[in-house]
């Protein structure tokens, strides 16, 4: 469906373009008036009016088609025969049967009938889909071709359309944010209708398993996210303990001590470290750092878990080093030279200048870099999914196994997803918390950095 409609639309707008160009040239020749704009602009005008309706129909169709077909099929289905059936499971079954015969074996007759019904509606729907795209394209061209007069200022209108398009492009960023907020809020609200907000934010027991049968022992699932937040926090602390000193000192060395040649070599290498995909760090943590931490723990008499917070945190810290160092490097470099010279001029040596003058001047920017690093540590997924644990554990011992927000989101959404199960929905509630916290950190950090830059510009 995707390829065919793409081909139809492309052919359609191409012929619309040709049509528009030839029509306007012949019109202007007939009337013996020069056109107000170049003929291409008229052709483009026709093209836009051909494309837009087609796109609207296309997207409308793919959004609503499935829902409408499902309702039609279910409306014909006699639920009295089997009142226990769940509508969404049923529709999935019908679809499977309709798609391939191998599913059809041993299914009840009413399901087979419904599948046949589904297939026939689907067939009609796909034919009418192509037809309606064609029709709206032709209607669009017909509507727009009224404007194919030499006196019509096509260029102005095209430029206006382009401007709308450019505006739309830059609104995509806003739409994305709105989309994120809506998807998170909507599913979270469904989650919070089952689980109270208070329990979620302050409960200390995370046990997201809802009993399959009623009255099963240990029956109630519980969704207290404090152990998860604590685990995230613990790993973040370990990571920042690694990343902040190394990153900051690297930045100081590169900005103040290193010769231009050394800088030219080290900076790209740090960029490589920054460009390594996080799953690679996860692998590194899993095969190298975690076993090392375990042996180290044994050598000092602590029984370390193979998926300890320390291993994940150390590697996450390594990931954040280049982030902190490059941001701090920028910040230190933008401290005005006059401050440096003034300090050296009254006899302070380099270290004193850095410690007493440059770092205090650069502090807001460095704090901003630190906060952005924290935000990355909290939101980092692949390292912890591979190297940290999955069991919620309320502890401050970095040798133990803890879990994080991102790990729990991944766990909840891998495998079967049922969107009426609080276990699946809990991922969105956790995602919402993650989004809000990182958003606050980001806005705060960006504001600090911006203010700081303005001060020295």
């Amino acid at each position, binding site marked *: 469906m995707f390829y065919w409609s793409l081909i139809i639309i492309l052919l359609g707008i191409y012929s619309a373009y040709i049509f528009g160009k030839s029509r306007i040239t012949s019109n202007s020749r007939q009337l013996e008036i020069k056109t107000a704009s170049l003929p291409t602009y008229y052709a483009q005008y026709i093209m836009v009016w051909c494309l837009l309706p087609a796109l609207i129909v296309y997207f409308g169709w793919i959004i609503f088609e499935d829902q409408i077909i499902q309702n039609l099929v279910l409306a014909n289905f006699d639920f009295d025969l089997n009142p226990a059936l769940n509508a969404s499971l049923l529709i999935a079954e019908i679809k499977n049967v309709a798609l391939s015969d191998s599913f059809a074996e041993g299914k009840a007759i009413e399901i087979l009938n419904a599948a046949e019904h589904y297939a026939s509606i689907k067939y009609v729907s796909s034919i009418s889909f192509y037809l309606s795209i064609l029709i709206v394209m032709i209607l669009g061209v017909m509507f727009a071709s009224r404007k194919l007069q030499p006196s019509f200022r096509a260029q102005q209108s095209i430029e206006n359309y382009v401007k709308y398009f450019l505006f739309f492009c830059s609104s995509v960023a806003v739409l994305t944010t709105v989309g*994120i907020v809506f998807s*998170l809020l909507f599913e979270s609200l469904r989650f919070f209708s089952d689980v109270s907000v208070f329990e979620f934010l302050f409960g200390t027991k995370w046990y997201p398993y809802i009993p399959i049968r009623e009255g099963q022992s240990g029956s109630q699932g519980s969704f207290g996210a404090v152990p998860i937040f604590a685990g995230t926090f613990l790993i973040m602390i370990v990571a920042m303990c690694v990343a902040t000193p190394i990153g900051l000192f690297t930045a100081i060395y590169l900005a103040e001590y290193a010769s231009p040649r050394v800088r030219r070599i080290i900076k790209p290498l740090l960029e490589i470290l920054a460009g390594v995909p996080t799953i690679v760090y996860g692998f590194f943590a899993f095969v190298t750092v975690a076993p090392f931490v375990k042996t180290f723990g044994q050598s000092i008499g602590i029984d370390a878990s193979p998926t300890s917070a320390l291993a994940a945190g150390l590697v996450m810290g390594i990931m954040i080093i280049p982030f902190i160092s490059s941001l701090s490097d920028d910040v230190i470099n933008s401290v005005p030279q006059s401050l440096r010279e003034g300090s050296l001029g009254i006899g302070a040596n380099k270290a004193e200048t850095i410690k007493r003058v440059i770092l205090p001047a650069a502090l807001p920017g460095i704090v901003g870099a630190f906060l952005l690093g924290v935000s990355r540590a909290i939101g980092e997924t692949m390292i912890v999914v591979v190297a940290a644990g999955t069991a919620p554990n309320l502890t401050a011992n970095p040798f133990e196994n803890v879990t994080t927000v991102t790990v729990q989101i991944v766990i909840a959404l891998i495998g079967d997803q049922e969107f009426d199960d609080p276990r699946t929905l809990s991922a969105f509630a956790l995602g919402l918390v993650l989004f809000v916290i990182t958003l606050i950190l980001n806005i705060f950090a960006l504001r600090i950095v911006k203010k700081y830059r303005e001060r020295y510009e």
Partner: protein
Amino acid sequence: MSNQFSHEKIIQLRKKRSAADRRFKTYGLIATVIGMAILFFLLFTIFSKGYSSFQKTVIELDVTFDQETLKITPNATYEEQVEAKFFKVKKNAIANALPDLSKKDIKLMKKMFSINVDKEIKEYFLQNPNILNTTQKLLVTAHSDVDQMLKGNAKRDIEEKKRKLNDRQLEFFDEFVFTGRLKSKFNNFFFTNADSRHPELAGIAGSFVGSLFTLITVFLLAFPIGIGASIYLEEFAPKNKFTELIEVNIANLAAVPSIVFGLLGLGILLNVFGFPRSTPLVGGTVLALMTLPTIIIACRASLKAVPPSIKEGALAMGASKMQAVFHHQVPLALPGTLTGTIIGLAQALGETAPLIMIGMIAFIPNIPTGFTEPSAALPVQIYLWVESAERGFQEKTAAAIMMILIFLFLMNAIAVFLRSRFERKW
């Protein structure tokens, strides 16, 4: 005054101060060296674990293409040959791999070969059909356990229960090594196969193609939208609240955790818009939204770098503002934008979490052929292999990481090349 700051005291103080200075410099140096050391250690770990994956172990097997066993005649058509009983040929060949094997031995022996040996035999036969009724020495792929043993990744001097190969199989193994029938060969499967449950058959072709489709989608979406947004913000945006909102949003989106984009893809693209699950189309759309800020920042920087005189010249010649921008400014800003886009694509190539959220984590044993087909992606493939318990997958993981790092390196090299080749200093 003279007593308080005697000459010696001043010298002492100066010594102390310069010692502190040197110490401070050393700290910086140490931190930098640590960073570099970690980088090299990381690369070393991956290369040392992964390079062996480019070789696979093969076993020389005497295969008898007997027409009775194959149940075909010498003048069989191609279709008949395809349908011939190659699994029986394989069975016989394995049973006679070593002399005097008992029934139990044969069973153990079978486990030392890859599960698809009959297909390899079949392929060989279809290429040379005139070998019917002869016995050929074929190199067939060994099971991953044998492979790991030969490469020394699996230990042999441990308890039998902890080993993948038991004592009897080790005897076979030694016999094979002794008679020189165990050989190493270039692992073509790693580059031509998609994922598999069997480490010796698993390859990156499927996930590579999936990643390629995903990146094409990212490029097709993010590049035009990114340029459009940059042009609007640089040239046409009025100074008002909404423009400010857009700017803040772009800055924030750059720092939103990638997994949240995955939730967006799941909640909106899959559940509301009904995009097909696990496909490069959805994955690419989500990653395009993630890459957008990178592209916009790069494009705006290069638009800013174009001297205003060029635009003004065009305007003075009677071009409309749109023409001045699109015909003169944008072409000059394109190299810089392209560089930023390639760097954004490199980020997108390594991104894993959002793809997991939209279901590109399913086990896909075949190579995808389109944007709307379920497929894997390289980083997700790495994740699947990391999580996999079998030893044979560990070297595959490292090798796949090597491949992804090579791709990232190439993309960045192209970006650097573009920058140096086309960037103009005004």
